[in-house]
């Protein structure tokens, strides 16, 4: 069946607003704004409270990662990769390491794979907790933020023990991981899982099923499934629109095919399928699934030395690869081109939030300014990976 092109048009004439027109209200949600989740500028053309067009301007956090990558050796790129999506560094590391390993044909130890999965899923929980807290703040609920960060502190303490750092870890290296888990760390992770699962019910009681919250987010920023696929949305934003697509199941990498977990999909429980509440609730439920995966990994993790296969010099033969992994934001793709030398020729990062944000001009018309904040927040963007 052929696709149709009946998608809403993006309004491009906003770039040169007519200075003589006085009935429109050009508003600048500037780079410094409490709820743009980073340095993002959105230029709004509104008619009173209703938004007619919204254009995002990015690039305020551009740190020329791709140019740097061409001058560094393969292992040196790992800390730089951390800093793109700084809320989910382990997942960034994982994607890069797996991409290079596939291109170079490097095998990874079993224990290293299990440790990778555990830290990646814990980081997914941490990132979703930040989303929950800040989304509550956007809607006006001040307290869930503190509760979410209380839980996140426990995860960050675990990460500090295993990698030495709280936010940007440089932990998953090409060929394995940087450090083995210290004494008792695995038990602490198990304790954390037991402590955390009842908290999800707390968040649901306080925020998810609160009538005011539902009124603010249901039916706001509805993204139909075909529009989402066409714009390249991925991750919870895509699953919120009813598309059952999770790279950990559809295109398994690392050892994810050994774990049993559900793919949460938005069902329009409180409004339309694909509204902000669906995207929010998908992430809350995903935290529960991540806990499931961590528990299974803890049960099966073998002994060994996860650093044994980390090569001293990484030799990558000529070739290219596009490798994608599922981060908390969606599909993170690494397109790596190598000519056999010490440095890559090209490292292109396909950031999930980059495409997630590009749908904003299509869903903004017709929303009120307060709804725009809710819709933007539900896309869960991180400017670090949009701008790279």
């Amino acid at each position, binding site marked *: 069946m052929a696709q149709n092109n009946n998608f809403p048009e993006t309004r491009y004439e906003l770039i040169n607003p007519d200075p003589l027109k006085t009935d429109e209200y050009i508003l600048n949600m500037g780079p410094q704004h409490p709820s743009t989740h980073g340095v993002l500028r959105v230029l709004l053309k509104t008619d009173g409270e209703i938004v007619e067009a919204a254009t995002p301007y990015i690039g305020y956090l551009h740190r020329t990662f791709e140019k740097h990558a061409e001058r560094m050796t393969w292992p040196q790129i790992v800390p730089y990769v951390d800093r793109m999506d700084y809320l989910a560094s382990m997942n960034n590391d994982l994607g890069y390491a797996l991409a290079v390993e596939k291109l170079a044909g490097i095998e990874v130890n079993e224990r290293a794979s299990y440790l990778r999965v555990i830290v990646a899923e814990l980081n997914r929980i941490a990132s979703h907790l930040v989303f929950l807290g800040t989304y509550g703040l956007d809607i006006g609920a*001040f307290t869930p933020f503190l509760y979410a960060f209380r839980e996140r502190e426990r995860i960050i303490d675990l990460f500090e023990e295993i990698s030495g750092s709280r936010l940007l870890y440089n932990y998953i290296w090409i060929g394995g991981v940087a450090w083995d888990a210290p004494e008792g760390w695995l038990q602490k992770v198990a304790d954390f899982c037991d402590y955390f699962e009842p908290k999800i019910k707390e968040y649901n009681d306080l925020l998810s099923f609160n009538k005011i919250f539902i009124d603010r987010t249901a039916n706001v920023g509805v993204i139909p499934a075909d529009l989402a696929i066409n714009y390249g949305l991925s991750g919870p934003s895509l699953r919120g629109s009813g598309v059952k697509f999770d790279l950990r199941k559809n295109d398994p990498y690392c050892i994810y095919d050994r774990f049993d977990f559900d793919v949460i999909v938005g069902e329009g429980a409180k409004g339309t399928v694909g509204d902000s509440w669906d995207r929010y609730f998908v992430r809350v439920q995903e935290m529960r699934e991540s806990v499931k995966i961590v528990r299974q990994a803890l049960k099966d993790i073998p002994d060994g030395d996860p650093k044994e296969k980390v090569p001293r010099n990484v030799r990558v033969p000529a070739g290219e690869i596009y490798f994608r992994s599922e981060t908390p934001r969606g599909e993170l793709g690494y397109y790596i081109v190598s000519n056999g030398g010490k440095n890559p020729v090209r490292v292109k990062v396909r950031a999930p939030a980059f495409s997630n944000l590009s749908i904003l001009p299509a869903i903004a018309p017709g929303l009120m300014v307060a709804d725009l904040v809710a819709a933007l927040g539900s896309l869960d963007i991180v400017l670090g990976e949009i701008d790279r």
Partner: protein
Amino acid sequence: MEPLLKFALDLIPGLSQLPHWLFVTLVALVAAAVLFGFASVFSLFAIWLERKVSAHMQDRLGPMEIGGWHGWAQTIADALKLLMKEDIIPKEADRPLFKMAPAIVFAAALASFAVIPWSRSFIPSDMNVGLLYILSVSSLGVIAILMGGWASNNKWSLYGAMRSVSQIISYEIPISLSLITVVLISGTLSMQGIVHGQEGNLLSWNIFRYFPFMFVAFVIYFIASLAEVNRTPFDLPEAESELVAGFHTEYSGMRFAFFFLAEYTNMFIVSAISTVAFLGGWLPPFEFLSFIPGPFWLFGKALFLVFVQMWLRWTLPRLRVDQLMYTSWKVLTPFSFALILIVSFWRVLTL
């Protein structure tokens, strides 16, 4: 005013030597100064209380350092800091309006203190239209908010001011309607008269009369009063995550402090009105407790309601502007109308 004059004469008999107009002016000035002092000190206290309440609800501690015991002097330090800040006025701002706005907001809040009955004799002015006076004077604050938002020459402030004006005006109606039910029961608009009508014990307070209708009236009044003082869930005008700080974004230093003080004073005023109208004012719940003076009861009950307002702020998200309007016009107003009908019928039939 008479009870106050009598009270002053009893205290200092020498005052009867002064000419009458001087005597009255002096007493009035002293009363105004006392109330101004109370309003300011209460605001300082309320800000500290809010920080502690919010902290404990969010599983943290709040101010602990300044002053020693749980940081009680924190707000004093903040007030001193604000006094010493540079006074920035935006370049294109409308200077006279910009400067007047905080003063008018605070004046409107302060003027309402004139008819709050603290005890049998301490009420600055026992007007026989006390309730009407309070409702009118508290609406003056709306003009000042609009002035502040417009004069800041900032689109975001204007947004906040517009939202605030529409919100306050819409919610005036449920407030007035639910207070009319109280007037129907008490038969008088005078604040002192309303309190006298509730004499007895706990069960003769207006909130428990004609049960459950007056209770519903109390709930409607409470919700509408949250909107009057721009508190969450109705704090869209100062929505921190959207408008930075709404209509008082551009204010700094002491002017900002005035807005803040006025907000907390307003919170106390609406709680005090609620206490007087529904919860018995300065009357103790049981006769044997009447050795505790009246002001304590009024202050205690109003403080409890202020605490509930703070509790709600840190629990609930905020409503969007159109949902706010919907709540006022399509939910609260029809219910208040229905309540007036029911209470009138009940009263007439049992007279």
